[in-house]
């Protein structure tokens, strides 16, 4: 009981995300993909024409609402603090390669949890990969790895990510007619499956508020256990998994097995290594894809650069066939994962400085 008393906010945040994610699937989002930061950023990259995979193009309002919800919350609670300058280019590439890894598995850590909660056992290899990736990252952190300080910035750059998200939301609502056809919206496939805009936006806006308040982070959950024996963030992540599972049962969305799972493949080896890469990149960047969005909403410009890196990475991944599909991993998936691991290991090894 004492545990609940100490951690109730983060537990409720995880519970909320778990339940509303499965509800969003009921309302129209793809199966086991109620919210997936990596998949949804990939869909946004497609809608903007950064890649031409016609089945994954949509301007996902959940992503915009995450940032805007966090922005509103940080203003309300006086935590909006524009800051930046901690090796933005490195953070860009961490985001870029994190996305390459995520698209080999087909999901971010949130979706790995939602896939498991929906009975997709392929997610187990992904979660093991996440733990291994974060474990490697923790070894670098223990060895002195850090990207140096960020510094207080002008207010205006702190507003850029919320403004960009607002602009993208307007694109979704107005759907302007542009020569060439952008923004693209999938006619079939996962990109064509989505809940009504207003429902997605409101639900995700509240996720943004709660996650900004509680600092919800899936990577941090694993990292804090390994590094500090601290189960605070993990209590939120476990409640997400548990309540998504219960909610799936109640909604008739639980379908256990390895095969024929929605937007998934069964290649365990590259599922594992894809997530090792992502997990390591998240650990080196200091937050999972969701957390980076919430941070960018409260003025963390470097987190915004990581987000842009992920969106660019998504475009690259589909253009260069490094992204997997339900048919299996792409022809260039293994190369992408190996290249990403080299980058992350070099980052971890060569960026050490004594802080104090």
């Amino acid at each position, binding site marked *: 009981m004492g545990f609940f008393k100490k951690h109730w906010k983060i537990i409720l945040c995880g519970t909320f995300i778990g339940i509303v994610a499965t509800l969003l699937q009921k309302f129209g989002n793809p199966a086991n993909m109620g919210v997936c930061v990596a998949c949804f950023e990939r869909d946004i990259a497609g809608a903007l024409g950064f890649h031409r995979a016609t089945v994954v193009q949509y301007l996902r309002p959940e992503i915009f609402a995450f940032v805007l919800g966090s922005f509103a919350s940080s203003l309300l609670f006086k*935590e909006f*603090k524009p800051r930046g300058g901690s090796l933005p280019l490195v953070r860009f590439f961490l985001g870029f390669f994190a996305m390459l890894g995520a698209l080999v598995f087909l999901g971010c850590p949130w979706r790995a949890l939602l896939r498991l909660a929906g009975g997709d056992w392929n997610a187990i290899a992904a979660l093991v990969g996440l733990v291994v990736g974060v474990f490697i990252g923790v070894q670098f*952190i223990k060895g002195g790895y*850090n990207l140096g300080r960020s510094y*207080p910035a002008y207010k205006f750059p702190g507003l850029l990510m919320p403004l960009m998200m607002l602009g993208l939301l307007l694109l979704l609502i107005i759907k302007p007619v542009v020569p060439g056809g952008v923004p693209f919206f999938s006619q079939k496939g996962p990109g064509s499956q989505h809940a009504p805009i207003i429902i997605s936006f409101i639900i995700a806006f509240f996720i943004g508020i709660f996650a900004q308040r509680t600092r919800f982070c899936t990577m941090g959950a694993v990292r804090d256990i390994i*590094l500090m024996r601290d189960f605070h963030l993990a209590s939120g992540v476990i409640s997400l998994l548990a309540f998504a599972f219960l909610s799936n049962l109640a909604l008739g969305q639980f379908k256990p097995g390895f095969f024929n799972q929605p937007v998934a493949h069964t290649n365990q080896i590259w599922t594992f290594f894809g997530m090792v890469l992502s997990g390591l990149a998240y650990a080196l960047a*200091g937050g999972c894809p969701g957390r980076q969005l919430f941070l960018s909403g409260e003025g963390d410009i470097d987190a915004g650069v990581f987000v842009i890196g992920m969106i660019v990475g998504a475009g690259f991944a589909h253009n260069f066939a490094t992204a997997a599909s339900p048919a299996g991993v792409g022809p260039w998936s293994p190369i992408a994962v190996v290249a990403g691991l080299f980058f992350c290991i070099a980052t971890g090894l060569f960026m050490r400085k004594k*802080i104090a």
Partner: protein
Amino acid sequence: MAKKLLDLRGLSCPQPVFETKKAVEDPSFEELEVLVDTKTSVENIQRLLSRMAGVTHAVEEGEDFKVIISRT
């Protein structure tokens, strides 16, 4: 040992709480002032200290945050 000052402003998670942990666990620790720039870091450090025996702390809030940690 005299009072030690740690300036951990602007560092990404988990550096502020991890550096604080190392400093408090150091045998020479007597009194420590930690400077951080986000409420998140303060919360993380407070959660860390709540799991450690024999330390007490106070938080000063201004433009940044100062956590003053000492032995009980």
